[in-house]
């Protein structure tokens, strides 16, 4: 089985330093790579981009970041939309929008459900992140994004598809919007930090009439009486229970500690709820 390129992106490691984002612009702005890509406009294109997601609300909040780019799908909608073979799939898995043949084919931009193809107005050309194919072909072993990333978000790996699938299972990797069925070659680690919710709160108790943080309290989260998750409060009485699917309905939460008990219920919509102060009594 032929070895093919895949990119693994760890969402938990990304802190939005934007090095990869700038590196892709550095690689392509002002540089033509015939057969691979025409030069990118100096501003306005985001071939590799970073999505920002805040989870929770003040003062219990997280900032998460998801690098996104052309997924080099094995079932790529852009290929189907292209005329004259303007988009091709290489044997190593990389999708290339031909900088000559694709001229004027705006439908290639529209076809991408991820919004990862950009329209170069001046050149009348659809353009995307080419997986640094021109560099990999000349002996590079990693993408520029991986080479410059200070927090090791990216892994550029060349594996046959079966090996990649085993790795995806072993490391609990997922792809962006798998329901689209496009079979992306870009895999994510810890994508739940973007796609899922947590519930959090601050537990307090009164000791000799003084309000104190309640550490070491047990928090149990239930849905329809079934335990979904459990946590212990930290020194500051705070807790988080993660990996709740957005829009998943009503939950009941119970906190127990040496000085009493507190309960709360909430309806989980799209955002991670912070339940505020829960007082043990």
């Amino acid at each position, binding site marked *: 089985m032929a070895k093919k390129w895949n990119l693994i992106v760890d969402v938990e490691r990304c802190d939005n330093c934007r*090095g990869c984002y700038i590196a892709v612009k550095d690689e392509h702005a002002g540089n033509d790579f015939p057969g691979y890509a025409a030069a990118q406009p*100096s501003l306005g294109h985001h071939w590799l981009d970073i999505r*920002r997601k805040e989870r929770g609300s*003040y003062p219990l909040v997280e900032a998460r970041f998801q690098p996104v780019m052309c997924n080099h799908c094995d079932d790529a909608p852009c290929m189907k939309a292209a005329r004259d073979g303007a988009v091709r799939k290489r044997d190593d898995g990389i999708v290339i929008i031909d900088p000559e043949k694709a001229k004027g084919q705006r439908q290639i931009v529209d076809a991408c459900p991820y919004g990862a193809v950009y329209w170069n107005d001046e050149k009348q050309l659809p353009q995307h992140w080419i997986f640094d194919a021109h560099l990999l072909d000349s002996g590079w072993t990693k993408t520029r994004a991986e080479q410059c990333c200070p927090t090791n978000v990216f892994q550029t790996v060349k594996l046959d598809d079966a090996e990649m699938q085993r790795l995806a299972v072993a490391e609990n990797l997922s792809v962006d919007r798998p329901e689209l069925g496009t079979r992306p070659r870009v895999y994510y680690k810890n994508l739940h930090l973007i796609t899922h919710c947590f519930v959090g709160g601050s537990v307090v108790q009164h000791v000799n009439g003084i*309000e104190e943080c309640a550490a070491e309290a047990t928090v149990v989260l239930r849905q329809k009486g079934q335990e979904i998750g459990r946590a212990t409060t930290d020194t500051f009485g705070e807790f988080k229970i993660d990996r709740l699917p957005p829009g998943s309905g009503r939950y009941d939460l119970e906190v127990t500690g040496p000085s009493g008990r507190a309960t709360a219920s909430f309806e989980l919509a799209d955002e991670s709820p912070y339940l505020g102060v829960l007082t043990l009594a």
Partner: protein
Amino acid sequence: MNLSVLLWGIPQAMRAMAKLYPEYAARLHERNLVAQFRLRDVPEGRWIELRDGKVKSRAGLHASPDLTIHFKNRQIAEGFLTPPFDMLERIDAAKNFKIGIDGPDELAVWFMQTLTRLETVTWKAGTDMGNGVTRYTNGTNSGPIFVYVKDGKILRTTPIDFDESDAPSWSISARGKTFKPSRRTTVATHGLCLKSMVYSKNRILHPMKRVDWDPDGERNPQNRGKSKFVPISWDEATDLISREIKRAKAVGPGAICVANGSHHQWGNLGHYLSAFNRFWNLLGVTKLVHTPDSWEGWFWGAMHHWGNSLRLGCPEFYGTVEDCLKEAELIVFWSSDPDATYGFEGTERREWAKQLGIKMVHIDPYLNHTAAHLGGKWIAPKPGTDAAMAQAICHVWLTEGTYDKQFVAERTTGFDEWKAYILGESDGIPKTPEWQEKESGVPAREVRALAREWGSKKTYLGAGGWGVGLGGAGRSPMGTQWARMMTILGAMQGYGRPGSNFGNLQFGAPLDFNFYFPGYGEGSFSGELMASANSANNYQRMPHIVTMSSVRQAIPRMWFPEAITQGKAMGYLTDVSSIQGQFFPFGYPSPGHVRVEMLYKYGSSSLGTQVASNRWINAYQHESLKFVVNQSVWWEGETPFADIVLPACTVFERWDISEWYNVGAGYVHHMYSMNNHRVITMQHKAIEPLGESKSDYDIFLAISQKLDLGSVYSEGGTSEYDWCKRVFDSSDLAKLTTWREFLKKGYFVVPPDPETARAPTANRWFYEGRKKDTPEPYPLPSEYVAGLGKGLQTPSGKFEFVASTLKRIDDPDRPPLNRYMPAYEDKQREPHLADFPLQLLSPHSRYPFHLMGDDEGCSVRDIREHRIFKDGHYYLVARINREDAAARGIGDDDLIRLWNNRGSVVCAAQLTDRLRPGVVSASTASAEYRPAGEPGRSTDLGGCINMLNPSKPIAKKTHGIRPNTTLIQIEKWNGVDTWQPVAETA
């Protein structure tokens, strides 16, 4: 070697090099001249004639030479000309008139450079990567990079991956794990975006003159910033400038003022502390005295408790990475966001701490980048109230007995007075967690929990951006209170005890601190001995001719506008040799000096980086300022407020040499301990200067030649390339590699010390009552009271809870006992500001470095956490809490106006929960100034946030800024500007 042989050899070498190197042959075509070498005591010598590229030479004396290079006698001549050259001998010969050169200055410089080129033309730089690509290296403000060049154009730039021939990395074993840093350089966006800046549409490519500035007629200063410019030749530009310099000098001493920004492109030679200082020292100028920018609270406050004056009030840091990883159980990041502004070398080490299970707490009104990345408890006090929260922590420690009683008893003074204040015995107000809650808004229970955690666990206090001080809440009104509290918290927990110290793993990697390579703070070839750390090492190690300005007039940079518009300004010196050095006032104008008439502005940062920056526009348009030059790489906000604009080139278009984050013995000794490896880079000239731009060095050379100072400025025709070699030779690098090898590869990794010989842990000596053993030459010997290396720099030699040096200056904002006072710009203190209900934080951006990277052509502009593209323009982002936005009907990406009496700035809103409600955060990173109406008197669409910040000092008797709690109002921007500045009451 025999003189006649030496002299005979010169024309031979010239002919040979012209045959081998077309570049050298071309150079010989540049001038026709006769140069005579001769002895002064006897009529002996040899002349060389260059005509149409041909070299002719005869022994003896020429009848009418253009240039004469004369030696006092044969022995001196032979010593001077025999390789290998001893630079100390050569400098001695030049400055003691043992040799001399007569003839036109411009020709002399050219001829001397032609002689030195005989050697340098043979040097080879860079690595051939095949396919016509050469890989060069460079240094940036964020770290060393590779620069790939093809067909004379930069293809890409990347961080450096080390290879097997580079020195090994250190490792640290802690709690059963071994950690080794990644073998590479890490670089922030402002170091990765530079190709886009080199080729920016906004580059200045030609000398320019303002159309309505006429040196012989109307100068129209009121039109600065408004009227157009036309290109002129370098010859015309340098003519005009040299004429104006002569005119201003005739007015009197100090009439020329020169001003630089705080930061420059990375490098030793092109830095303002090098070429800029060397050139202006030869003319005598009024200089701007910078405040201790970024150190405000530490310098004016913390220093009084423990000294450390040569570190501007910050503590030492040696060995703290290892000690923290091995011993600490908790790290408290207090106003500390190293991931925002100092690259990513420390990030990896903080990730190790997380792996080890070391707990983390982040105290900052903004859930900053470091906090967001690492996780842990976030506590968000109201800006300006951190000191109250810190005092409540002391209260818990005192009442629960969880402080280091032995340290307090043996190593400190004034504790009883401090204790009485905290417990409320002396003023009736116990500084309890409940008391602080009313000030800071932080729940009392959280402060108690934090104090208990801290009092029971070995804790590193990461205070300020570096963890060992700098910035943070110290850059705010009464920021001295906060920085002073940080020292007090450290002292109550016995700093220096294993696991208890200052730091956030940003500083203190176990590197070799004895290997010498100069940092930019050492002034390179400036010859300046007072206003740089030149005399510490560099002046001995790299012999060069001393220079000094004879003008004794200076202007406090913060109040430059007042100096121009009101004719006077007063500041306090940044004299770091002692604690009381900061008590010395200085004033403008100085006795016997005249008012400034000419300003030479280096860079264009003032409107983006200087507080209440509309003031600068008033100064620029003031009638007393007759001539303004601006020398910049890019056309930025401040650039058009000039009469002549000179195009400087980037660091990719000239030669330099430097070490990553090495400031030198100036003010952050061993700053490179932020990095995981010491990396020294050749900053290759990768491409030719764009357009007609020139290096700063060559611009000053061109002007100096019009003033007959070229030979002195360039030390006899030394070029930047030659200086690189002299810097190399002056350093310990020359002991471990050769010049040619270094020049080709472009970087060198300095081997770290073996584990057995690492620098001792910071402050351990003090904790244990031993003589100081850390490798910093601070304090100065004369500062010790008890003897060299014994105790601290304070009058008592101990940590002083009540700062005795503050008893020597009567500053109402800095009482010797650090009692809590509401800050300025707080409604409790300034009720007349009630119309402005929000507090503005104005931190540095993590994307541009100050203004570098915010250029209109730079790729960083597309980063949507930095700017938002809307209606054809990139607006600076202002972060607002969702509640505050909802109350004003503001949505994400909406254009909003931020304003107060001083300024009005339009930004794009970014709604967030990462900010405490009531607080707005926008970075001071705007390279653009775009007034909606009259410059200085209208709303800015460019994003110069500093327009809003006050021009008053951090404490009464200081010279330091106080942004970061500035009161403002915001509203949706409707596109109609009616804002007018309102004069501030005192």
